[in-house]
């Protein structure tokens, strides 16, 4: 498990590690898409290519005992928080060895043992639940922090406002981490909100709102470090808005007809992984980066093999884990 002391400075080795973790997410998403197209995965996929810097930069300043909530697009958050790659892959395959035993799937990836709730696939669903995590930490007088990942689309849900207001007035150790990728499915944010900076809404609740370049992992990390540190010492919640972009469509069948290829090209110019790789290559040369990439492919080869070879859940397992305390006839629903 990671350290409990989180450094405020990032050295070159640490940057290489940030690269490794972003690249793991990127390649996980890309390879998952391929096996999906080959018909190996049930259900649908919401992929996060382009948004890796947010997941990695934020989770880099969290302790193993801190918690996150995620969304219908949770693969990056899960890997960044430390969900086992094999268990995440197996969950996408609907296998018994998955991190949710096949009951969660892509949209509910999570693992309490690493501080991640099953991802909440209702837009805004995590924004109220996260206040309860923070409230528990406050009442138990721990110094844990809870981070709520959500998209800009959630900021028009009542849950966003109720969660932020309650967290603020209770000074809860919560960080609201908005990934503003500009589109809610196909709808541009500017078309459904006159206030296009989600962070501006923080003022309405008396909390700090910060706009951050979500395509720069070091900028993400720096903003998250300060927000999490504030939350941890009882200074209350912060609303971070990461300006980012999803390179893929909203879900697997999306051909992205609602946005221009020019816009996509502009954002890809700012690819957080390419940017960091270029900088690191100028320090270390390409070799350690190529080695890292090769290791990631091996990790993913292994995870896919593991998932393919894992047993399916038993059909009757669908009837378990509804209740902690089973009473009477509801034992066999």
């Amino acid at each position: 498990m990671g350290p409990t002391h989180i450094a405020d400075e990032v050295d070159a080795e640490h940057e290489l590690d940030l690269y490794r973790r972003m690249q793991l997410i990127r390649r996980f998403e890309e390879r998952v898409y391929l096996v999906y197209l080959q018909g190996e995965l049930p259900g649908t996929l919401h992929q996060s290519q382009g948004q890796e810097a947010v997941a990695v930069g934020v989770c880099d300043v969290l302790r193993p005992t801190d918690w996150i909530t995620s969304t219908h697009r949770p693969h990056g958050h899960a890997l960044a928080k430390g969900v086992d790659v094999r268990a995440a892959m197996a969950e996408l395959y609907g296998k018994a060895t998955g991190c949710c035993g096949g009951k969660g799937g892509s949209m509910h990836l999570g693992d309490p043992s690493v501080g991640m709730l099953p991802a909440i696939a209702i837009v805004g669903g995590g924004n109220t639940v996260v206040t309860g995590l923070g409230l528990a930490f406050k009442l138990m007088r721990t110094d844990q922090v809870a981070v709520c990942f959500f998209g800009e689309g959630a900021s028009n849900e009542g849950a966003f406002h109720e969660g932020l207001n309650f967290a603020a007035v209770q000074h809860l150790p919560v960080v609201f981490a908005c990934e503003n990728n500009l589109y809610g499915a196909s709808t541009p944010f500017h078309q459904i909100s006159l206030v296009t900076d989600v962070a501006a809404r923080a003022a309405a609740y008396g909390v700090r709102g910060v706009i951050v370049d979500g395509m720069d992992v070091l900028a993400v990390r720096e903003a998250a470090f300060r927000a999490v540190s504030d939350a941890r010492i009882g200074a209350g919640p912060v609303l971070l808005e990461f300006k980012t972009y999803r390179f893929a469509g909203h879900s697997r069948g999306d051909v992205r007809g609602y946005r221009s290829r020019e816009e996509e090209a502009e954002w890809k110019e700012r690819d957080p992984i390419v940017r960091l790789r270029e900088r690191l290559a100028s320090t270390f040369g390409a070799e350690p980066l190529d080695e890292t990439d090769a290791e990631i492919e091996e990790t993913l080869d292994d995870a896919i093999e593991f998932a393919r070879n894992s047993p399916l859940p038993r059909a009757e397992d669908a009837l378990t884990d509804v209740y902690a305390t089973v009473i009477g006839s509801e034992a066999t629903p």
Partner: protein
Amino acid sequence: MTVAAAPATSERRLTIAEALREAIAEEMRHDEKVFLIGEDVGIPGGFGGAFGVYLSLPEEFGHDRIIDTPISEKAIAGAAVGAALMGMRPIADLQYADFLFECMDELVNQAAKMRYMSNGKLSVPMVMRCPVGTANRGAQHGQCPESYFVHVPGLKVVCVSDAYHAKGLLKSAVRDDDPVLFFEHKLLYGSKGRESAGGMDLTAHVPEEEYFFPIGKAVVKREGTSVTVVATHMSLYRSLAAAEELQQDGIDCEVIDPLTLLPFDEETVFASVRKTGRLVIAHEDTLTGGWGAEVAARVAEECLYSLQAPIMRVASRNVPLPVAPVMEQAVVPSMARIKAAIQRCCEG
């Protein structure tokens, strides 16, 4: 946990409100992870929560554990769900069960499903107290929405109608590891100014010594041989009153308070129906899709050949609630309607 023995000889009569307050205080003393959260629950000089259930608790437990919230039901429910996921045992309060619709996502999509989605790694040990019932408050402050939640796997649904079971069940609900919706009828709290309950004595014996009443267990409130009547809240008391009147006509009613609607104590109801051969179900929730329909279906599936007459349901009419008392009383199940249904059920 132990089920209480028969009441001790010395009577200690409490109202439901007093019994609930005792249960909460005992559980808060027992476990520091228990806390209260809701609107107007602990404000000094305030209301002590809706219907005064929390009066005096802030003085003993302080404002860290009795948390006053904004008027923000999604935040209340979300905070309760999240805190429960982290091992706390919140008792949340919505003042009026009608406000449950403000936080359906937190209850139905989150509380009910987190255990399942996590493959059994998480649990949500929370209680949501929900006052229900018609009391001249109209369409948005008098509904009995229990049946919506009976439909949700992962939730437990309790309806209490007397002080003894209110206390024993609330203590069990707080210690239960699953989310429990705890429905209480506004006219049954027994606090001042509730004469609209019909002048009934709403106190019941509550023993001094600690006890629990298990979730998922019904009680037979009145034994009889002619017909089984299953009813909750005000409908329970109206059924008991009807039973007394019908005794003179030779109809001997067995009246059952199910207490828990989910999971439902089928065995107690099936055993009674097999004995009486007749079933009437009475509830203040509206008729269509009400929990009585589920009970009727289960009895039809399991006990059809024991039945000597069609199952009868008495429920609120399928309309929103009006305020004018004359209209309101025409909507909710009156004693007369329950009595007529029992008589009809016993004709065949």
